[in-house]
Structures are given as C-alpha cells and as structure tokens.
C-alpha cells in the first residue's frame, strides 16, 4: 500500500514467484521426462528425446486396460458434467426462493464436501452391497437369477462423483445468482413472457458462460476424482485409480507419459470451454442477447 512500491512489495512478490515455481516446477519436470528416450529412467538425465513411452502407452504395453479405463473415465466425466449442470442449475433456481428444507439441503450439500471421502465411499459401497443381498434373496426371479452386483461405474460410481461435484456446482450457482439483476426478469414478465420464456430467453442467455463453467468444473472434478471412487466403482477402475495403482508397480517413464496425457485431456476440455465462453460473450457483444428472438 502507500504511494511508491515499498520494500515489502518486492519481498512478497519474490515469495509469490517462489510459490508459483513450487506449484509448476515438478509438473514441468515430469512433462519433460515423459519424452524420455527408450533407454531413459525415472530421473534425469534425459537419454534422448522420443515419443517411445507415449507409443507404449497407446499400445497398452505392459499396463492393464488403460484404454478401457480412459474410455470409462471420459464417459463418466461427460455424464457427471451434464447431470451437474442440470441439477445445479435447477437447484440454483430453486434456492432463489426459500422453500421447506432449503437450509437442511444446503447444510447436507456442504457436509458432503467436509465428510472424509473414504467415509462416503464406504457408505455407498455398503449401500449397494446390502441392496445386492436384498435383491438376491427377495428380488423377483428374473432379476435375482443372474444378478452379480448393482455396483458399477454408472450406478454407485456416478452417485459417488455427484456427491463431490454437486456441492461445488451449487456454490457457484449461488455466486451467479447473487450477482444476477432481477430487473431483467421483471421486465420480461411485465412484457408478458411466460415463466418458461423468461427462463429460456432471458435468464439462461445471461448466465450461460457461468453455466458452462459449472459443467467444466464438474468434468474436471470427476476426471481426477479418486478417493470417493475407491470403494464405489465396482469391478472396473477409473483412470486416476489405475494411475494410483501404477505408482507402486511401474518403474518406467510410461507413468509420466500417462500423467502428461491425462493432463492434456483436462487442458483440452478447459480450452474448449473457455473458447465456448468467449464465443458466446463476443456474440452477445455483437448482437446483444438473443432475448425475444424466436
């Protein structure tokens, strides 16, 4: 503060720079090492540069079912993303008015963030195990006959991920609607728009960039999730779980290649989302909102 730059500023700026280096340094190192030559090991020096480890990864050399896990994580991430957007949006709209149990629901959502993930994961695993037992013993014949388990990526696994992404989604929605100018809606209503028209042509276009942000958040949270997935995925692992398992068994730069590749997917998704947001923003700037059209 004060007028000129004080000495304190330079100390703090240096501290900040060190912090950024601390954040990025290790990541940059594995990024470089993933291009390690075929004879190279887990640490420096680099023995040449190559795509060797990426190729091995691609062909699934030595590693079990990486492409399967990749595909599952991608699909799960997309489903989680869509559900997170739809459910957070509807919840965000609902929370604008007080309703019976709104405080309770908010409390539960925040609690879901704070309760250790392993506890939630264990609970979900128990729930589905007991459900399995119940269905096998009391379920109808056609169902109980060849039922193995109800646990899976898109039942228990999906639920586990949603308990993680939805609270974040809801908090972002709160932030959005706190800044939302209610007069737009009132104006639409005064002009004779139905509630649905108001939502579709006025509210949604205004908050669309933030909604894309929620979806993006949902995808990356799911894509990297591991603690909650640990007990709740059933027989098939997601990509981060495979990665964790590999840290103990694999001793080649292949694991760095996998790390670089998964990071690449996150970055691509984020870049796409940012691009979409920019496009929407510039379109709105050029044409105004599409309120009232069609």
């Amino acid at each position, binding site marked *: *503060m004060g007028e000129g730059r004080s000495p*304190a500023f330079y100390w*703090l*700026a240096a501290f*900040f720079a060190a*912090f*950024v280096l601390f*954040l*990025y340094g*290790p990541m940059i190192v*594995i990024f470089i*090492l993933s291009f390690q030559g075929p004879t190279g090991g*887990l*640490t*420096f020096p680099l023995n040449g540069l190559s795509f060797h480890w990426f190729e091995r990864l691609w062909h699934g050399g030595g590693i079990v079912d990486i492409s399967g896990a990749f595909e599952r994580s991608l699909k799960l991430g997309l489903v989680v993303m869509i559900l997170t957007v739809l*459910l*957070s949006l*509807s919840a965000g709209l*609902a929370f604008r008015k007080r309703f019976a*149990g709104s405080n309770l*629901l908010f409390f*539960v959502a925040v*609690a*879901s963030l*704070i*309760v*250790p*993930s*392993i*506890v*939630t994961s*264990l*609970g*979900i*695993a128990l*729930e589905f*195990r*007991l459900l399995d037992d119940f269905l096998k013993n009391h379920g109808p014949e056609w169902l109980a006959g060849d039922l193995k388990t109800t646990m899976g990526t898109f039942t*228990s696994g999906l*639920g586990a991920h*949603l*308990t993680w992404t*939805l609270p974040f989604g809801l908090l972002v929605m709160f932030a959005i609607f706190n800044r939302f100018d209610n007069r737009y809606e009132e104006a639409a209503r005064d002009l004779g728009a139905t509630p649905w028209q108001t939502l579709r042509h006025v509210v949604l276009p205004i908050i669309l960039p933030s909604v894309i942000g929620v979806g993006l958040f949902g995808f990356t949270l799911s*894509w*990297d999730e*591991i603690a909650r997935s*640990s*007990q709740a995925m059933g027989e098939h692992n997601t990509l*981060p779980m495979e*990665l*964790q398992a590999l*840290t*103990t068994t694999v001793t080649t730069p292949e694991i*760095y290649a996998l*790390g670089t590749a*998964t*990071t690449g997917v*996150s*970055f691509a998704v*984020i870049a796409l989302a940012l691009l979409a947001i920019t496009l929407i923003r510039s379109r709105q700037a050029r044409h105004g909102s599409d309120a009232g059209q069609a």
Partner: protein
Amino acid sequence: MPFGLVFLFFFVIPLILVVIVSFWDYNDYEMLPSFTARSYTETFEGCLAKLPDVCTILRTYASTAKFCFIVWLSTLLIGFTIAYFLAFYVRTVTMQMVLFLVCTIPFWTSNVIRMISWIPLLGRNGLVNLALTRFHIVDRPVEWLLYSPFSVGLAFTHLFTFFMVVPIFNSMMRIDRRLIEAAYDSGASAWQTLWNLIIPLSKPGIVIGSIFVVTIVMGDFITFDVMGGEQIASAGKVVETRLNALQFPPAAANAVILLAVTLLIIVALNRIVDVRKEL
C-alpha cells in the same frame, strides 16, 4: 427435487448405513446383522492393557494429527502470505485475476500426477540430491527426501495450499480499505495494521481454509500411500486396509471414529475463533 434425492441416496443413507454396520458382527466372508460393539472393542484392543504404552490405533491418530498440524501450519503461513500479497499489493483487478488463474492451472491435473511429479526431484538420483552432492553439501544422496514423512508433508502443502489462499483472499477483499487508511493515518506501522486489523478481519477465511485442509489430511489415504511409500499409517488408511480385507463392520467402525474426530476438530476450530472474537 432430484438434487436432494442424489444427496439422500448417495450421502445421507450411506452415512447412516456406515453407523449401523459399524455395530454389526462379521466373520471371514460376510457381515452378520446384529448389535455388538465388537468392531469398536477390536479397534481399541489392548489400549487399556498396554498402558502406559500407546496402542496402535491411538498412535495412528496421533501421527495423523501431527501431520494435520504441520500441514495446517505450513499451508496457513504460505497461504496467508500469498493471499495478503494478492489482495493488498497487486493493484489492478485484471492483474489479480491473471495471478489467480496462474495459481489455479495446476489444479487442472490429477493429484496423483502432482504427487508423482516429485519423484524426479526428490528421489535418490533426483535433482535435489544431484545438486546436494555436486556442491559437496552431502557425501551420499539423502534418503529421507522421498517416501518419508517429509515428502508426505511436502506433497500436502503442494496440493492444498491454494485451498487456504482462496477463502483468505475472499475475506481480505471484503475488508473496507478505508479502515486500513485510517490505521495508517493514526500512525500504525505496517506490522501493527497487519496484526491488529487484517488478521482479525481475515479470520472467517482462515477458519474455512483450515477446515478444508484439516479434513482433507485427516481422511486422506492416497497421499500417504503414494508419497509415504506405503510405510506411513494414517487414520484414513486404517479404514482402507480393513476394506481391502473385506471386513466391513470394522471398516465402518473406524470410519465412524474418523468422522467423529474430524467433526470434533471442526467444532474446536470454530470455538477458537469465536472465543477470540469475544475477547
């Protein structure tokens, strides 16, 4: 409302089931519905008999709590300094946003990757050891850098400091700038302003950040596994070990204990701040 249903089915009911199952009996391959404290008594087995020695489970919790404290302290000190810099020394909002984004980017990749990225730095032949031996600071590579309590603490700090920065920054941005000018005008030094004005007013952020960091460390088992070389016990890992052995009731009992301890810490954190506010 579907939003509520998701939490009912995948959060509330599971938690209730954990508590119920923790009182069930079990044998080698299945759990048996009943009401027994067996899982709890087994968990604390020998705790009374071995006195004054500390039994395994208490030692595990003490060790986890120690990690919690160290990580909390380091993330708080670093996080507060970063937030203080961003909130009061960066002048334009655009610059604040840019610097904030710079700090957020590493979160776009998975925690496991951020953990293993320390291996080339801290390993026996890693860069740090290379530098230390090159400059003859040590004769032999230092072993305690990786797969040690040090690397676990370092990884936690690396992963979660930003969770401290965000809420503290948020609190700081809400401080009325006129208060600070008033403090300066009344002759307060920068330190006095920091200590008597900014820190007290940032307390809500500090508490929220602390709750985040402490609950994460208490329940973690992955960082302990990957960075500790599977040698360091933690409260979360006890649950996981029981689960891997398919012993659900003891796992549930340990989960209940873990949950109770975590909640106690959160309550205590709130208490500390409220008490101070009243003084």
